[in-house]
């Protein structure tokens, strides 16, 4: 297994409360990895630390740790983490509501080559070519996510499920290496969950590494090759879905001590 993401002893405290207490794990490149745990176990905080939205108190996260040019993500601001190839979504659904669906995708692809303000104002040939390429890419992504009929509508006009699709589509506009998805199917109807699952598998097959925080454990157990379980800011256990689903510590963390039903975890 070649790790694409390494989390090494990450610690984060908020005014004396330890949210993350020395989390360490590797994520294999081109895999779908689940990050589960009860509410307050530190999943989103870990995403925040990896993506630069929070500074961790100790520890580090690396992109491409075994490769020729590893990037220490925890020393970078969110913009540079995104530009390094790690994109994320948020627990609270976020799109640019007053921008059209197409412009949401174009705005999500800002981290391409930079042109000077003069070149942009004069719309020089390289600027026009880049814009054309971006629009072609956006058209392809719109078609892939069945959003093409809504391309010119403001994102605010989309249904909740369509916004979830748009959020995922936006994150893919720049071909990230790693995609951190925070509850990608929360509040989504079962039909759309199946559609989202197919999208996620297709994205993985394209070589994007997915790390998913999700409370829909059926989805996690169906999709993920490896699962990390957090509890109280610590890594409780990890392993393939079948193993994790039957781990009594995981059952206890989710359902309280004495719980015996793996089915309750969707396993």
């Amino acid at each position, binding site marked *: 297994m070649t790790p694409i993401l390494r989390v090494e002893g990450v610690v984060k405290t908020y005014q004396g409360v330890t949210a993350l207490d020395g989390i360490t794990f590797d994520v294999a490149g081109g895999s779908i990895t689940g990050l589960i745990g009860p509410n307050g176990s530190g999943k989103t905080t870990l995403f925040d630390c990896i993506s630069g939205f929070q500074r961790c108190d100790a520890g580090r996260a690396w992109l491409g740790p075994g490769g020729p040019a590893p990037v220490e993500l925890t020393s970078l601001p969110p*913009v540079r983490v995104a530009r390094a190839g790690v994109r994320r979504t948020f627990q609270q659904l976020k799109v640019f509501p007053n921008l059209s669906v197409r412009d949401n995708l174009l705005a999500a692809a800002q981290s391409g080559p930079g042109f000077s303000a003069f070149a942009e104002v004069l719309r020089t040939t390289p*600027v026009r070519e880049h814009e054309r390429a971006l629009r072609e890419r956006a058209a392809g992504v719109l078609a892939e996510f069945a959003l093409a009929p809504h391309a010119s509508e403001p994102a605010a006009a989309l249904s909740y499920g369509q916004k979830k699709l748009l959020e995922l589509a936006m994150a893919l506009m720049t071909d990230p290496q790693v995609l951190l998805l925070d509850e990608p199917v929360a509040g989504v109807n079962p039909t759309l969950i199946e559609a989202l699952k197919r999208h996620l598998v297709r994205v993985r097959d394209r070589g994007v590494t997915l790390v998913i925080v999700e409370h829909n454990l059926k989805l996690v157990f169906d999709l993920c090759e490896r699962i990390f379980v957090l509890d109280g800011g610590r890594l409780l256990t990890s392993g393939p879905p079948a193993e994790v689903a039957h781990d009594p510590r995981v059952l206890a963390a989710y359902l309280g001590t004495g719980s015996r039903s793996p089915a309750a975890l969707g396993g």
Partner: protein
Amino acid sequence: MSRTRAIAVVAALALALPPVLGSPYVLHIAIMTGFYVILAQSLNLVLGYGGLLSLATPAFFGVGAYAAAILALRFGWDGAATLGLAALAGVATGIAIGFPSLRVSRHSFVIVTLSATLLLQLVANNWEDLTRGSLGLANIPAPRLFGLTVEGRTGWYLLSLAAAGAVVLVTHRVVGSRFGRAIVATRENEQLALAAGIDVFRTRLFAFSLSGAFAGLAGALYAYFITYIDPGVFGFSVSEALLIMVILGGSGTLWGPVAGAVVFTALPELLRIAPEVRSLLYGIILLLIVLYRPAGLATWLGRHRTAAAAPSA
């Protein structure tokens, strides 16, 4: 009628206005309208597209005005160079004010921009060696642009129209570019913009500096046109008028602030026919627009609040 044709008709009408109307008073208002169009676009970039309530536009305007007046009076610079330098002074002021103010919350940003404007007004009032304080700078000579001296109201009208047109064109190009999309994205959702790789601070600093360039240029034109400036150019009343123009014109649209500048420069003058109830009528009209056109006059132009969504290049 296609959009291009509509713009061509409006441009032809605007060019034909001076010989047709001829009245120096009407021309004076038309010239000032051009300056207000520039100022309204300056505020629109930051407020409309960027979602930040800036009270620094008079600061840029005042710095541009003083830069042009001092360069012309003290150093005898000609028009094109002073106009360019005034715009650059606006950019520098934008960077100087933007650097601290764009790092604080949106609410604090309002206060910091207001404070910076008041601070610059204090400087203009008290740095008497340079600005002559409250006496102001008088007898600013007519500018020479590319060998031609801008004189007479018709000449000034054409210059004002050309400058306003150029600023609208630049705004159109910027908001239709990646910069424009980035500016709007920072307005819409700062966290998502960051996650999408948009450098929120630098994007806002760019918008704020460009806003400074526009208002600095307007200040220089104003100083040359009126031939006199004093620290009043930093006054809050400029911000007040511009907020009405931008918000009631159509914040975050290209043509809304233009319509706002035209309507709200002309309206107080039109209301002079009833001087006793002028302010009352003006207030009632503002209220009616807020009630029935909350998104601004631009909704009449069919341009609702949209993205930086320009047609593809």
